[in-house]
């Protein structure tokens, strides 16, 4: 059983346009039988936070190419990408490097 997680999300580089222009979101992820990983987080974001145009943020199982993900100020590729298990008070940042946001 995973306890409810308190996570800080940040969106930059234009990605915030898809979230009503709000850059910082403080969210509490509900309890789940299995631990939360980044892949689950993406699904959760898509269902609960994304206001429009999901294809500009997610692609298949992962983020759209061109969107960087930092977990606690470190490259997510160093942490295991989608398989990283989220801890309480983690800070996840999504920065878009694409021209069109």
């Amino acid at each position, binding site marked *: 059983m995973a306890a409810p997680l308190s996570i800080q999300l940040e969106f*930059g*580089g*234009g990605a*915030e*346009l*898809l979230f009503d222009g709000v850059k910082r979101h403080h969210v509490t992820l509900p309890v789940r039988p299995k631990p939360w990983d980044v892949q689950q987080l993406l699904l959760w974001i898509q269902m609960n936070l994304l206001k429009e*145009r999901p294809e*500009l943020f997610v692609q298949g199982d992962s983020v759209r*190419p*061109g969107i*960087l993900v*930092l977990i606690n*100020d*470190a*490259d997510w*590729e*160093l*942490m*295991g990408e989608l398989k990283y298990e989220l801890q309480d008070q983690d800070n996840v*940042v999504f*920065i878009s*490097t*694409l*021209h*069109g*946001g």
Partner: protein
Amino acid sequence: MPSADPPSITKVCVKCKVQPPAVLLRVGDPYCRECFHEYFIHKFRAMLGKNRIIFPGEKVLLAVSGGPSSCSMLHQVQQGLSVDAHKKLRFTPGIVFIDEGALTGCCLEDRLKTNTEIQALFESTGFPFHVVPLERVLELPASVLQPHESFSDSKSSYKAAVGEFDQTQSSGVQPPCQPQEAAEVHETRTLELQQLVASVKTHTAREELLSMLRQHLLLHTARTEGYSKLMLGDNCTRLAIKLLSNISLGRGAQAALDTGFSDSRYGDVIAVRPMRDYSAKEIAYYNHLFKVPSVFISGLDSKTPEKDSIQRLTESFVTKLQTDFPSTVSTIYRTSEKLQTACKAPSAVDDSLRCELCLCALDTSAENASAFQATQISEQLSQRKCPDDSLQNLKYDTTCSDRCHGDGTCCSSASKLEPMELKSLMCYSCQLIIKDMSSLEHLPGYILADAQRRLRRSQMRAEISSFLLD
């Protein structure tokens, strides 16, 4: 697709081998925060130092769009000029920002709000800055398109210039910059600009046209304010995408100028791209980790689907490829470094051999069996016959009144510019832009005026050609 061994196995920075890694650069090199910072700063100074194109004491205009690359460039310049910098940079910067609020149709308050944010950012640097609305492009003089002589003799030695600068150096304190008055924009100009944008039928051509107009505006600002160098913030990823899109757009001949480090097509003002060695990822990480301020401004192409234009499609292609093959962008970049133009230096190019829009040398001499000739032949064959469009049939009145134009050309040619005539003054890809426009009348006055001037001159030349000695 088998993934490479997760680099976190090594768990230490590849440079200092002590600290835990924060960023994964290039193909699989983990760097810790401090080593990344070092690496980033060093690249900028090395890029400028290696190319030796910016002389000490020179006035350099930084074109800042508010985006991450240009703000990062601004930050680097600021850091490099600060008194305690190791290998201090030595030039005099100014900043220019083009306000493109007219394009997205955003209201005056929003434009003002963005401009205020940007101004606050610029003010904190202490450099003189200019906020120019894009509408200003409609008021440019025709002289902006004409080649200018370069300021200084480019062969003068870099070392000599450094020596001279050191001797005459004063205390190095920047004069306090006067706040610029908010640029006044007339509503009619905004509408004219919007009409111009609306007259372009495809997104591809629209993006190209806007990019040309922006360049003209930057050039004009640099000239009028006395800057001899223009620094653009294009990063490696953006330039790799630009190179591939340019080839798709027919701009292969100008690829070296469009994506190289220095761009000398204007003659007097040289554009440089010091960020061309940084990938978009490196810049985004650096800005986030070291709190470099930037302002995201929603543009015409925000949230557009990828099939909208050649540029968007290429961007999507390159970024997708990059995720699976992280050396994509750097390979394209290294290939582009090897590009050089075969024709002579464009700054020496004569008026009649320049493209009216992009100001590069014309690439439209259709020699026998050239690809361009083949394109022209197939175009003629697939169109219905319209001989009136042909350039040869331009009628001119031999009995003109004596109200001739001041530049020594006859005034009797037609006052309305035909697309065919304008196309004859342009390179291949700019011709394609014109082809995608529903009407030429919304083009800014300076382009039409300069085009007409050139046409009159070439007409006059044709008239008196039998009398000329060469």
